[in-house]
């Protein structure tokens, strides 16, 4: 027998066997196929193996290699056929499958509701041309107070109403002291110091005030501050922008009203309310940028005017998601986080 013949008979054996194993449909046909191809005495493979001795010595390694390969392949084929038969039998004879059993869910993380709210707010304001700006959370009195027209004797600067940093060589409230910003209005100043009008920005971020924590207060919370400065910006623009915002956020035609208020950095200053579910809801503070603020950043209040507004993100978030305790937002508790 030539090497070529030996190899080709091995090949056809392999082809035949894989066909036969694929057709196995019962325990009997499985056993038949096994005996036929892999039978220890008279199996087809055994028959071919016996021919190995008839080959030339130098042909033997190659022939042996192929023989082993086919042997492995046949064994694997038998194994697969055995498993397939077992599967088929259990499928027909085992307990009935229940396709209504739950699938395997993906284990996904959750995005914090405050982030979701802030993204929503940015998106609405973005459509009205307001870009996002950010600034540091540790501030100097210039940005947190002075440039915002909050004089030294103003109660807002009181050490008990702010988180001043304990630094060795500065007195709380003095020019070289530092504090956790108490409002995102600081970003207004930082933006205006570095840019010329027209300006349309919103800044969202953490602010800090020493409130004792309860269901509606937390010493750290988030604000969204909006600022628009340009030639001919009026209070009517402010009211319009806030109404459009409210309609967008609350999803229906919302009534809006202004009540006079007082903020050192706006004049006139107003509180903004929305009529929602027949109830006036306090939304935040707003007003026309005080001329002193425009001057402080080097703008000419005779040529440009602007409006600013600030609102609490938590309030909007909690109302939207029916969250009743602000402390839950900052608990890191999965029972809370996994609901969003």
């Amino acid at each position, binding site marked *: 027998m030539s090497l070529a013949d030996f190899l080709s008979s091995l090949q056809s054996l392999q082809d035949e066997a894989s066909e036969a194993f694929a057709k196995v449909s019962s325990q009997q046909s499985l056993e038949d196929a096994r005996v036929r191809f892999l039978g220890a005495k008279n199996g087809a493979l055994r028959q071919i193996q016996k021919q190995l001795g008839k080959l030339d010595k130098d042909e033997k390694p190659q022939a042996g290699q192929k023989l082993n390969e086919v042997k492995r392949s046949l064994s694997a084929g038998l194994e697969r056929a055995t498993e397939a038969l077992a599967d088929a039998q259990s499928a027909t004879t085992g307990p009935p499958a229940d396709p209504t059993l739950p699938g395997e869910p993906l284990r*996904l*993380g959750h*995005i*914090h509701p*405050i*982030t979701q709210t802030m*993204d929503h707010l940015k998106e609405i304001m*973005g459509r*009205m*041309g307001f*870009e*996002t700006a950010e600034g*540091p*959370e*540790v*501030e100097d009195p210039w940005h947190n107070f002075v440039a915002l027209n909050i004089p030294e004797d103003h*109660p807002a600067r*009181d*050490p*008990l109403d702010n*988180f*001043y*940093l304990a630094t*060795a*060589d*500065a007195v709380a409230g003095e020019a070289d002291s530092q504090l*956790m910003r108490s409002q995102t209005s600081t970003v207004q100043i930082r933006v205006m110091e570095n840019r010329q009008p*027209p300006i*349309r920005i919103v800044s969202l971020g*953490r602010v*800090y005030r*020493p409130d004792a924590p309860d269901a509606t207060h937390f010493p*750290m919370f988030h604000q969204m501050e909006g600022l628009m400065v340009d030639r*001919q*910006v*009026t*209070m*009517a*623009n402010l*009211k*319009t922008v806030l109404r459009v915002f409210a309609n967008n956020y609350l999803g229906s035609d919302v009534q*809006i*009203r*202004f*009540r*006079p*208020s*007082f903020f050192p950095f706006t*004049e*006139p200053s*107003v509180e903004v309310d929305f009529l929602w579910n027949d109830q006036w809801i306090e939304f935040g503070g707003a007003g026309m940028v005080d001329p002193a603020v425009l001057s402080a950043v080097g703008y000419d209040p005779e040529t440009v*005017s602007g409006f600013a507004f600030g609102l609490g993100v938590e309030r909007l978030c909690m109302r939207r998601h029916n969250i009743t305790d602000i402390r839950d*937002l*900052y*608990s*890191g*508790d*999965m*029972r809370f*986080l996994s609901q969003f």
Partner: protein
Amino acid sequence: MLVSWKWLQRYVPLNMTPEDLAQRLSLSGLNHEGSQAIDQDIAIDLEVTSNRGDCLGHIGVAREIAVLYDAPLSIPEARPAAEGPPVADQVSVENRFPEACSRYTARLIRGVKVQPSPDWLVEALRSVFWKKRRDGSLEEYQPINNVVDVTNYVLMECGQPLHAFDLAKMDGGGQIQVRPARRGETLEAIDHKRYELDPSMCVIADASQPIAIAGVMGGADSEVDESTRDVVIESAIFSPLSVRRTARRLKLHSPSSFRFERRVDPEGVDWASRRCCELILETAGGTLAEGSVDTAPHTPAPGAVTLRLSQLERILGIQIDRDEVVRILTRLGCEQVTDQPQQIAWNPPSWRHDLTREADLIEEVARIHGYDQIPEDAPIPVAPSSKRSFDTAVEQVRHLLTAAGISEAMTPSIVTDRLDAMLSPWTDRPALQTETAMLEGARRLRRSLIPSLLGSRAANWAAANRHADLFEIAHTYQPGARSSDLPDEQYSLAWVYGGSFAQSKGIVETLLGRLGVTLQMEVVGETLEGFVADQTVRLKLAEETLGFVGVVSDQLQKTLKLPEPVTAAELSLPVLLAHCQLVPQFQAVSPYPTVSRDLNFVIEESVRWSQLRNVVRSALGTELTDVRYQETYRDPEKDGQERKRVLLSIDLQRSDATLTGNEADQLVERIISRCEQQLNARLLDS
């Protein structure tokens, strides 16, 4: 500020319902907080903003009502008959602390008969001086006597605090000093508590000792009682800052300090004094000494303010009739100085400290005219706005981390010493601290987000949430070199994760891939407090520290009572974002097949994967499209000690033609020989 419905009618007719009035006041600047029926009266609670000290008395509120309803306003003349000898001969005032007291006036009434107040007075005070107890019941005002009650009445009438001293109880007679308290001085106030004073505080003193804490509270020793015959009436201006600081320091807040902090009417001081004397004469008799002692009888008049009518439209976006403008400002007490067609100059009334600029007058006109008159259909011009690449990137970060099963947490920026001390990979400088604690004991500005997240993971575990895999994106505060420097606020991304070190590191690598970072990240072993020594690395991009990944140390894990190991990572977002490519760029896909080969190298233990990978990469050019780590195993019997086998896969591909088997063999050969030369590696036959 509580106002009485009945009391208001002494100055202005109220031809509306209390509800209508409350609503109208809310919409013009005095927010209605609530109303309470008191006997036959209604107490209306109004929120007065800090710029409107003038509305801390009934007359101020009545003035607002008169303007809003265009009703007449009548204010008592306050002209008490002064039949006694001149007060200047009997009382003197020496002001040694003008920074804290810009004006001090005193009047003297001799021969009063101190007795219970008449009903009208008690009734008026009861309507506005009650307090609500916790159970909702009312704590009534307890009338004191006709002199003290009158001072309280006038306080609530015009907002000017007054004080009555018993002349006989003042050492040295009527020699009043306004001066800084002396170190060590104390005063028993009329609340019968003793207060320790210091030189920053202003006191009213007789010849020997303080008899009142200026603007805050009078002293018990000089209090007016049944035995009092002669009273000195103080009406003064104390500076807001001085009063606030003193009240804060003594934790003593009174109706007086509240009003001085919001400024009183500098010209109203004398009216209040006269009014007080008038009512004392009426209720307690006596003889008023002629004149008053006044340390600053002439208050400098603030300058006129010009309002250009064009500015109303420029700021408000509506036109308002000139006549309406004039009516509003006149009725608010402004005095027209000049009158031109396009602009009018005004002298604001002395009680309106807040009207000094044109913008202030615009606000006055707007709020009385009504903000409901301002339209809400004045759109702003269209302007483009683009999302910041920072926001785009951070959004991707969030998506990736949530896909990894990690949830976003937000935790307080200011932490306890215990959390801060756990670990601080970015800096050795001690954390900055706040003067007051934010939450219980939390005063340190966090230098890393990881301790907060570990704390949350532990709290979750305690609440039986085993798998609190959490991330947070927030600022950390790295202290500057000098304490006067603002801290370096680093936007950081951190997570704590129950997965292995390799999984945590894999998240970083996936993140970099997703954000289009093509630079090879450098990984350096690092020993860090709070982490396991050989399972912690510093990650670098272009020589800058991107962040840290590591396994939390056993000790810290035990301290936190966490049952299973946890990995933590923290990355600097600015460093990450500096190298990302947020707009992916398409690379042409080669139509020719890829040839993959496995290479099994025996190398020295000390050779790291990163070295091996770099050598493999550098051996070929663009034909090498991928190098993948597969596994490491060791067979010291065959390979010898300190050797390991690293199996890797490479992909080879040409962009212009099919790679032949021969070419592939040659390329592989180049890799093998490079590894042999540079790493003393040996390829194992397969």
